[in-house]
């Protein structure tokens, strides 16, 4: 039985099975029955169990799935309502500094001091992170070069574009050479070239550290993540390799060219992952267990198709 099948809802117990099926021998970060409730009582995360080892973990899920909350909990900015997060076997609620020493965190939204130059801002954050003056100077130069901002390092941040500010955010997350790097929507605002550069940077970094990458851009996860975690409604829905999920979707993705006028009706009837207008009609990519029509031909699933199929099985999307 495949992972994806195991995780078809309702099957929270199967999630645990799937998790246990993955190698957890060299786990650095473990989440044990992790739950988080807001003050009003709304549950953002519920009973999460995860063991994470070095590599890139892609965190996927629809809006409001609990991804950013999970990241804030791991980054020790909030405390779990129940359960615990252990870093190197130590509960981070009891000793947050153990994790913070080796943490790099890029939140989804962050601000900068516009009057400071990129170098000054990073030097300031290096001091906040407790780096010595010598270390700080070296790391700031290195990180600026890593994100391609070394030539504009003296310019005030007020003059930076959104993408450049995002790169400053990435640079600050790398300042203390973290073993755990948490990046929330890191490629938002980056141009395609910078996105590629960031993906290779992540792959480079992931050889000896744990990178948690949360994004809505499934292709970013497909290109770099070694492990995939899918959350929905604060619950763990999938935990496994991207290849496995894609293999499960094999035979469930179809290419189908239809006349443009049929599109609204077909959208209502089928799960469509893409629609491309062509001269002879619209080429649809349909997620379905069987061919939607005799004209439809099987297609090679992408991670996006597989993710949509998973969500569709869960009753979402």
């Amino acid at each position, binding site marked *: 039985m495949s992972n994806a099948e195991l995780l078809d809802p309702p099957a929270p117990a199967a999630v645990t099975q799937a998790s246990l099926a993955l190698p957890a021998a060299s786990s650095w970060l473990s989440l044990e029955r992790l739950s988080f409730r807001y003050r009003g009582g709304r549950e953002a995360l519920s009973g999460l169990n995860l063991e994470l080892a070095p590599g890139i973990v892609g965190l996927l899920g629809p809006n409001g799935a609990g991804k950013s909350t999970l990241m804030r909990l791991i980054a020790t900015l909030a405390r779990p309502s129940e359960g615990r997060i252990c870093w190197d076997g130590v509960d981070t609620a009891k000793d947050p500094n153990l994790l913070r020493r080796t943490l790099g965190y890029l939140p989804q939204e962050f601000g900068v001091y516009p009057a400071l130059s990129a170098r000054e801002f990073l030097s300031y954050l290096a001091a906040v992170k407790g780096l010595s003056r010598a270390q700080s100077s070296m790391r700031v130069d290195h990180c600026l070069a890593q994100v391609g901002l070394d030539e504009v390092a003296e310019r*005030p941040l007020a003059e930076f574009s959104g993408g450049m500010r995002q790169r400053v955010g990435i640079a600050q997350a790398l300042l203390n050479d973290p073993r755990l790097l948490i990046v929330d929507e890191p490629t938002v605002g980056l141009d395609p070239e910078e996105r590629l550069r960031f993906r290779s940077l992540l792959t480079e970094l992931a050889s000896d550290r744990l990178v948690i990458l949360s994004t809505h851009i499934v292709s970013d996860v497909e290109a770099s993540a070694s492990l995939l975690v899918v959350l929905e409604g604060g619950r763990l829905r999938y935990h496994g390799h991207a290849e496995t999920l894609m293999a499960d979707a094999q035979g469930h993705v179809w290419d189908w060219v239809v006349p443009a006028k049929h599109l609204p009706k077909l959208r209502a009837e089928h799960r469509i992952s893409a629609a491309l207008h062509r001269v002879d009609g619209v080429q649809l990519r349909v997620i379905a267990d069987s061919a939607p029509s005799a004209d439809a031909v099987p297609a090679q699933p992408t991670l996006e198709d597989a993710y949509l199929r998973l969500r569709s099985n869960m009753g979402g999307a």
Partner: protein
Amino acid sequence: MRRFHAIVLADARQRWRAPRLGACLLALVAATWFCFPSAEAGYRVLGIGHYRVAYSSAWVGMVVAMLMSLLSLVGFYLVRGTLTRDIESRCWQLLVATPLSRSGYLLAKWLSHLLLLGAVALGMLVVAGIALSVRADTAAFDPMQMLLPLLLLGLPALGICALCAVLFDLVPVLRRTLGNALYVVLWVGMLASASISGGNEGQPVVRLGDVHGISVFKRDLNRVAAEQGVDANAERVCLLCGSGATAAEPMTWKQWSPAPADLLGRVFWLLLPLPLLALAARGLDRAAASPASQAPNRPGVRPLRWLQSMLWPLQRQSDCALASLELQHALRERSLLAWGALLVAWIAQLVASPAVASISVIGAWAVFLPMFSRAALREREFGTAAVVFSSVSATSRLFRVRAMVLLLLGFVCAAPALARFAVTDPWVFLALLSLVASLAAWALALGSLTGSARPFELLFVVGGLLALNGVGALDASAAPGSTLLVHTALLPLALLLLAFAWPRSSRVAGCA
């Protein structure tokens, strides 16, 4: 009309969902109870000389109307900021792309402020009504007489307060500390103009210089007092009369009937905001596009090399290195004018009379007031909290660093005076030391407790104005012994508040 309603409603929702504001309003309304003391209480809030006016609907309504002059001070800090929020959160960019007219937008903002202030006023009136039923000397209850002073005297004052809140948000340089400080000065000016307008029977009846209607009230109280045989020349009308009224003699105030000319004056103040808002709407686009509105920092400011060299010794220790960086970054944002003002204050501290030297110290602190009032809010205002507070021991380190920076700043601003008084008057020297510690502690405590710079700024400016009048709240030389005693005694309270509020504030900012 729907757009108008939508803006007012959105502002109201945004406001009422902030628990701090609700607590603040409740406290204000609750405090009204103490403005209606029993006949045996040793104080009065409003009266004439040593006479106690018997509680009646008309008198209770008048007290509430006069309290509006105080609400127009505090209320400004409660309501201001919604326009700035729209501009800085870029909501304005969404609104500007709609057919909404600029003047309609400003009018809706003004009305939204006025509604909030009006709600507080009504709450106060309800409390006043309860006080009347408990403490009234007469059973008669006249709701019209209760409401009339509030509508005619209080409402125009609140309208002007709401107008200032809109206009100050509109002008980029007034959106922050300077605006907060300037409003206190403006408010004092308005009160002073009411005094100049006088309150005697023979003066012109359309009193355009009196926003709060105080002169109208004084005139009528003097008239009623004279009718009851009270010598109006010997007994002064007082607002916040204070204690010493235990042996007060009774007088009555059964009803208030404003003259037609009074109505004209009040309608003038009530309607004045409308043309001014229409005029201000012309500058709205320019104001919203101003770079100063995007962030409190001014971009492109050169580093202060001399300061870097001076602070070099601090680089050896981790906390000191961070404090040095924070100090450099904050001080470089001060304008040349600010440095010039500091220089003048330093010279005055050295050569002027002790009283002026002491005032100069307050002036020097005022130059750096934003650094004090916003020290606890830096991460929240710039959105760096998640990055900063996920660092090792960031909460405690930043507290130490910010305290260090503020203490250093406080000492440096007062350095010449400290040196001078250390030799000439040790009590003033000690009072100054206590003031420096008190400023740093209260700036951090109030900032982290309220999440706003305004309470500290308000207290500081009021303290400064009191000092100019010879009261030793911030003036070390006026009464050094009591200044030392009060500030030292209050320091543990500030530290206690800090111990509670600082970690909580960091947590909230980090999770925002």
